[in-house]
């Protein structure tokens, strides 16, 4: 059902995501950049919606637009002695290089990996009730070990962060 609506939606959301990503590093004010980053996240979530990946879309909004953006804002606010704008930085050339490297890597992956398409036939005929069940059983079934490893890693990061900022008790 690739109707024209989906196409319009895809291009609008892609434009939103790319445009706001561009604005993130073009704008001079760091907090403005955070706002545009949120917009980019929302654009990404919209792209997931056009792919019928509702769970991913909602998670994207919840985690990135809701939580990570607050983290970004706090990072901006808590950085002492930093002016709140995107001033000139010594790392600008390095940043450009790293960014280009990432772009090349992602482009390489996107073009070279043979993305396996869903070949199960008509979804509605198979009583497919959304991606939640599928993702959930995948995470807690086939991929339980990587999932748990990731959570242990995050826990370690959390404990490390607390240990770092903890004031001396004595």
């Amino acid at each position, binding site marked *: *059902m690739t109707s024209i609506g989906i196409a319009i939606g895809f291009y609008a959301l892609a434009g939103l995501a790319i445009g706001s990503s561009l604005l993130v590093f073009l704008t001079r004010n760091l907090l403005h950049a955070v706002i545009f980053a949120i917009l980019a996240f929302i654009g990404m979530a919209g792209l997931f919606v056009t792919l019928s990946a509702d769970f991913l879309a909602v998670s994207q909004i919840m985690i990135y637009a809701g939580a990570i953006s607050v983290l970004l804002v706090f990072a901006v606010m808590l950085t002492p002695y930093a002016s709140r704008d995107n001033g000139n930085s010594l790392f600008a050339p390095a940043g450009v290089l790293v960014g280009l490297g990432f772009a090349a890597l992602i482009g390489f992956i996107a073009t070279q990996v043979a993305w396996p398409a869903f070949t199960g036939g008509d979804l509605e005929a198979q009583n497919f009730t959304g991606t*939640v069940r599928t993702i959930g059983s995948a995470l807690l079934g086939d991929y339980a070990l990587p999932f748990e490893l990731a959570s242990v890693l995050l826990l370690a990061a959390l404990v490390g962060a607390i240990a770092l900022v903890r004031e001396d008790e004595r």
Partner: protein
Amino acid sequence: MRAALDPIRIRVPMSTGGMIASAITLVVLLGAAAGVGFLVLSGALDGRWYDFRDLGVGMAHLTEWLDEQNAGQSEATRALLGDHWMSWITSALIGGIGILSFVGGVLLILIWVERRLIARIQVRRGPNRLGPYGLLQPLADAIKLIQKEVLIPEGADRFLFFLPPILVFIPGLLVWGPVPWAPNMAYLDLNVGVLYLIAISSLATVAIFIAGWSSNNHYALLGAMRTVAMMISYEIPLGMALISVVLLAGSMQLSEIVAWQAQHYAWMAFLIPFSLFTFFFASTAELNRTPNDIAEAESEIVAGFHTEYSGMKFGLFYAVELGNAVAVAAFVTAFFLGGWSLFGLELFIPGYIIFATKVAAGYFVLVWLRGTLPRFRLDQLMAFAWKYLIPITIAHTTLVAAEVTAMGALALPGVIELGVVAAVNLAFTVWVMRRWARFLGYRPETERVMQPKLTTQVGGLQAAERMRASS
């Protein structure tokens, strides 16, 4: 004399005309109810387009008819626009307009309701001058707010200062999408509805933070920091409370959660009262309502993040706050109070009316709390969230998961297994609540006597020490 001193107690007796009018109204209402009952029992209503018990049914008939029209269009148009574009656009428009008008109308009325209720709680009268019973007061307030100058404080970040009232308004409207008004009457019946709600409600955090930060005002910044801290902390117990609901109902779709409750004649409030409490408490924290209104604690930080907003920008914040309060009442209704179901009465009474009544009841509780309780302190609330509420909700969720697993394994009759679940969870809730005060640092057994001691002897430090020693 007493009456003159106590004007609030004066009651005006009802006039004869008023009595007759009420009697006639009562008779008409009873007759209408009897007619509806007859129609329902005879089955003349089920599934017809004029079945106003569920506007979704009529809507389905309409979309069907529109799809037929759509099929009659030319091949080129269908290839370009698809097979259902007319019905999609029409249903989207009707639903959107319906939700917008409901939210707008309810806001206008609820401002009045809240003020009157609070006034009643506070032995006052509340707005009673403009229009009948002061009903036009919210309208006048809105007109006043629109007329007022929108001030932008000096040193404010103009772009960021401009955005937040809009940014908080969008999620404030979007949360109304998945509300299940009646069995077939939900605008955006997502199968990830619960997650959608959490995601949308988390969007407002950044907007509020930006509002406080861009105002260039210490009060606003303090309020923003408090809000963000609260929202992030209380999202976790809120999500946990909803996970219990999802586990029991086996779906994240709001309409299915309500349908599950209707089907089992068991409201979640009976099955998992602790989740109801957690959800409600965390919601008051997210809504900045008493007892958790520290983000705009009037006596401390004036108005919190919207201190510097004036005119209709303030109006938008205010409207969103009220709208979110009603939305929370709606979700409490959907998740915990059985939504449109009322033990079979939903056959006779339109589901959306039952739903709206329950929403009004939930909202009344919010107003009641606001009129009664003092406010916690920020560190108390944060400690409560992180040290007590989150561990307890995790334990509770584990308990519910175990119960659901056991239910699946044993497959006992529904009444028995749900009864056992309800009893176990009620016991858990009561046990937790009885220790509630201790979580806040209040230990009745070690507290010294609270009443002041009485004496007739005056004295200074020595007398003070004598009195302390005597206790």
